[in-house]
């Protein structure tokens, strides 16, 4: 198993913290993990991307240049990184923010209106975890339960009251994928 996940957004959108959460969960499952953030000079509004590699074997290059999964949170990133995804790979798009217009036909595309989904859960801050839940359901790179556990380590203690809604968001994402799958089955 080797997943090379690239999460791309603007600073402040939470791409880096989502990546860290995923990487941390990978560590907890005893996998080989690497996490490399790439950001611009500005803390807010600039480029904020990260690559997360999770594998059962030692990781050669921690740099994700040909992702198996691409998560995009702005249209700039979609344009820029669509070409890089490996054939047969997956792009998850936050379609609340980005029009899911993809040129390639040799990859899978999953648009999720993550912001709306998050709002319906009562907290717009958890949009990224809706996406992460979907990613986990498709790739099974780590278990959702592990990510829920990892929240305890990644969130500061004063934010621990946020854990339940974050877990709900993860589950929501997974559920959406199952719904899609059922749709296609018919």
């Amino acid at each position, binding site marked *: 198993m080797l997943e090379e996940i690239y999460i791309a957004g603007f600073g402040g959108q939470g791409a880096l913290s989502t990546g860290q959460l995923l990487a941390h969960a990978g560590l907890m499952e005893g996998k080989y993990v690497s996490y490399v953030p790439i950001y611009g000079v500005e803390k807010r509004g600039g480029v904020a991307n990260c690559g997360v590699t999770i594998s059962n074997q030692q990781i*050669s290059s921690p740099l994700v240049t*040909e992702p198996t999964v691409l998560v995009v949170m702005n249209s700039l990133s979609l344009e820029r990184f669509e070409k890089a995804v490996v054939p047969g790979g997956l792009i998850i798009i936050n379609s609340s923010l980005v029009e899911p217009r993809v040129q390639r036909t040799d990859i899978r595309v999953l648009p999720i209106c993550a912001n709306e989904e998050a709002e319906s859960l009562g907290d717009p801050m958890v949009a990224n975890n809706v996406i992460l839940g979907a990613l986990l359901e498709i790739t099974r790179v780590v278990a959702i339960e592990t990510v829920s556990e990892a929240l305890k380590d990644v969130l500061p203690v004063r934010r621990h009251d946020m854990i339940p809604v974050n877990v709900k968001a993860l589950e929501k994402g997974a559920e959406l994928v199952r719904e899609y799958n059922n749709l296609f089955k018919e």
Partner: protein
Amino acid sequence: MKGNEAIGEGAVRAGCRYFFGYPITPQSELTHYLAKRLPEVGRLYMQAESEVASINMVYGASGAGARVMTSSSGPGISLMQEGLSYLAGAQLPCVVVNMMRGGPGLGNIAPSQADYFQATKGGGHGDYHLIVLAPNSVQELVDIMKKAFDLADRYRNPVMVMADGIMAQMMEPVELDDQYQIEIQPKPWAATGKVDHEGKNLINSCYVIPEEMESLNFILRDKYSEINKNEQVCEEYQLDGADIVLVAFGTASRICRAVVEKARAQGIPVGMIRPISLWPFPADFIGTAANRVKCFLSVEMNMGQMVEDVRLSVCGKAPVYHYGRFGGMVPTVRDVLEEVKKIYSGGAGQ
């Protein structure tokens, strides 16, 4: 654990008692970590007014017998060069971390290996060498700090640890051995006040009389050849049956590892040699390998610096090529693989 934290924790466990430094990206998180961690264990973190001051505080602390370090990046390391020359001249141990960034000039904060020449060929004025180490994983960042301090003390010489923004930011699992017994050899040469020793101790690199300066140079030369003999370190990867050997250190070596795997999967016999000590350069190992391989490709995040040392080591026994991206750009696995294929079809394959 993040690379920056790994270096910090490695230093703490290596018995580093003092840190003097000045903020610069991409090493600032290392200073944040140490500013918190060192006082926890009753040691000193101090922010200096400049890199010039930092390295001279290191000079003072080291001459007073302490395990001490500083860290910086590109422009800051340039400002430290005079101080490093003094440290080398006065034979003082210390550890300096350089998180290399794109240059020249202010450049940028993106990962780079452009300071290879500066680190391995002197950097400052006068006839001297730093011991230069280049780890390539977060685990190795932790482990190499102990080695760096030990080498510095053993040879009474400054040691530079080279990494870049990717390694600084990268998170990988790390195993820390929690019993860290540090045995630090006594330093009878330290200038700690005459109470501590017979006669007067002097920390100095000024020899007005050329004959006296030359005798220090002789001592240094002997020391450097001793280091060159004992401390060349490198790692080999899939060298068996390799026609093309990649030579790469640090971040570039991680990319090359993936290149080796991909190339092997496509039936191209590629291997890699990863210098861990950049000075002394693992010339002996590369020179021996040159007897059985068809060519070398030095992959660097610069315009071609280490390739010169590879050529000297290979000594004409095989062609040596260079592939680089610079200015903060990082070569991709695909690009390097393309280059390998080009070389392979151009002759190394026959």
